[in-house]
């Protein structure tokens, strides 16, 4: 019996029927697998799919990457690049063509990741978004620290622990985000947007704990980088471990090696702040005390100077008094009296120096060197008292 399909014109396959059978046979016989080769004839279709061939010395394999799968590949491959492609071997029935449907593509070494990283970095560099001059100083004493990360990740616990240890008074606000996988960039951008619109944080930490390069890739996303650069709140990036440098690190105000280090940068140690305050208080008190001591010293000096001046003035005056006293003594009637002269005075103590001062019969005093003599005027004469006739 010749009833097997395709065994006679009567049993001929339809073209579509056969290519579909081949497709099923191929897909059943080859599970998803990795193929290595060089990229040739890369084309990006307007609908977002990528087309190229993988070649080596003896063969060529037409490849397609559907648009939705290209999103997981950091960058399109270069012409001639040696790559590893994972995919499903199939037939494209409409063209009867062998086709490898690629869903993962890796270049040797850093390859595509580095290419994508470098391309985005160059773009952001050109716009000045990675310029160190753009980086803002973090507040020294934040009251509220926002943390954008996975709510159940290790990073969140690390940050919380470090902040509690350093400064139990700081307020921590978590903004949950997806930090790996396809939805991560959009989720991170949404969280940054919330941070900006909320406006309650003094500083923000964005990041996640360690992971594979693919896991961390959302922090190399352009939209995330732009959202960080646009943040009104200073941002500390903390992605993975020390060795993981991402685009987010380049645009953030500060790159911390790990989430724990980010927390250390974000918050001061309370005890140190208190110590600083104590020192400031001490400085104020010391300064005032110095000032008081200086004032007192200045007062003492002034007092001493004044005393010295006063003493000198008194001495000078005393010297002058003595000098005057000497002169007075020379003029003193006492000295004259001691030489035998007398002075006549009336009862009121007025010196009777001329004839007219004497009234006949009136009494007066004669001062002599050792006392007083009461006398009476007998008569008054115009002639000199020292006439020899009288002596």
């Amino acid at each position, binding site marked *: 019996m010749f009833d097997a399909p395709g065994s006679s014109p009567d049993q001929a396959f339809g073209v579509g029927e056969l290519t579909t059978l081949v497709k099923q046979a191929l897909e059943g016989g080859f599970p998803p697998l990795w193929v290595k080769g060089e990229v040739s004839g890369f084309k990006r279709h307007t609908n977002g799919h990528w087309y190229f061939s993988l070649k080596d010395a003896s063969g060529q394999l037409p490849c397609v990457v559907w648009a939705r799968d290209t999103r997981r590949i950091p960058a399109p491959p270069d012409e001639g690049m040696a790559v590893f492609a994972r995919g499903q071997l199939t037939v494209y029935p409409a063209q009867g063509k062998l086709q490898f449907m690629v869903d993962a593509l890796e270049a040797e070494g850093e390859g595509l990741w580095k290419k994508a990283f470098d391309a985005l970095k160059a773009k952001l560099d050109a716009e000045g978004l990675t310029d160190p001059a753009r980086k803002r100083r973090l*507040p*020294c*004493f934040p*009251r509220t620290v*926002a943390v954008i990360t996975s*709510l159940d990740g290790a990073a969140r616990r690390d940050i*919380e622990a470090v902040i*509690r240890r350093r*400064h*139990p*008074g*700081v*307020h*921590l*606000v*978590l*903004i*949950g985000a997806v930090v790996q996988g396809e939805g991560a960039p959009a989720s991170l951008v949404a969280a940054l947007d*919330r*941070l900006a*619109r*909320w406006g*309650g944080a003094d500083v923000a930490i964005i990041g996640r704990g360690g992971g594979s390069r693919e896991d961390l890739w959302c922090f190399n996303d352009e939209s995330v980088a732009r959202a960080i650069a646009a943040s009104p709140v200073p941002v500390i990036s903390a992605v993975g471990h020390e060795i993981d440098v991402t685009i987010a690190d380049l645009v953030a105000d500060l790159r911390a090696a790990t989430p724990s280090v980010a927390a250390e940068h974000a918050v001061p140690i*309370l005890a140190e*702040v*208190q110590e*600083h*305050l104590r020192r*400031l*208080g001490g*400085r*104020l008190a010391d*300064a*005032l005390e110095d*000032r008081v001591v*200086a*004032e007192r010293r200045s007062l003492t000096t002034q007092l001493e100077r004044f005393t010295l001046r006063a003493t000198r003035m008194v001495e000078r005056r005393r010297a002058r008094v003595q000098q005057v006293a000497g002169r007075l003594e020379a003029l003193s009637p006492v000295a004259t009296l001691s030489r035998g002269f007398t002075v006549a005075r009336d009862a009121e103590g007025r010196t009777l120096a001329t004839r007219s001062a004497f009234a006949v019969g009136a009494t007066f005093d004669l001062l002599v060197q050792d006392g007083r003599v009461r006398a009476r005027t007998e008569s008054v004469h115009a002639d000199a008292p020292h006439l020899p006739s009288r002596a």
Partner: protein
Amino acid sequence: MSFEQTLARLEQIASSLDRDDLPLEEALRLFEEGVAKLREANTALGEAEGKVQRLIEGASGVFALEEEA
């Protein structure tokens, strides 16, 4: 005045007080201000409660903070 501004003012006061050419009256006034600022700063440090909260955005774009366990 933020904590940072308060501290900056304190530093400024301390530096001014270190100068000898400041009139005594001004020095005393600055000292008093410094003591008030110190008290303010210490109070601010003791005030914060240190909560851990989650930022929640309501339907109308209103933000709320929810206590975290």
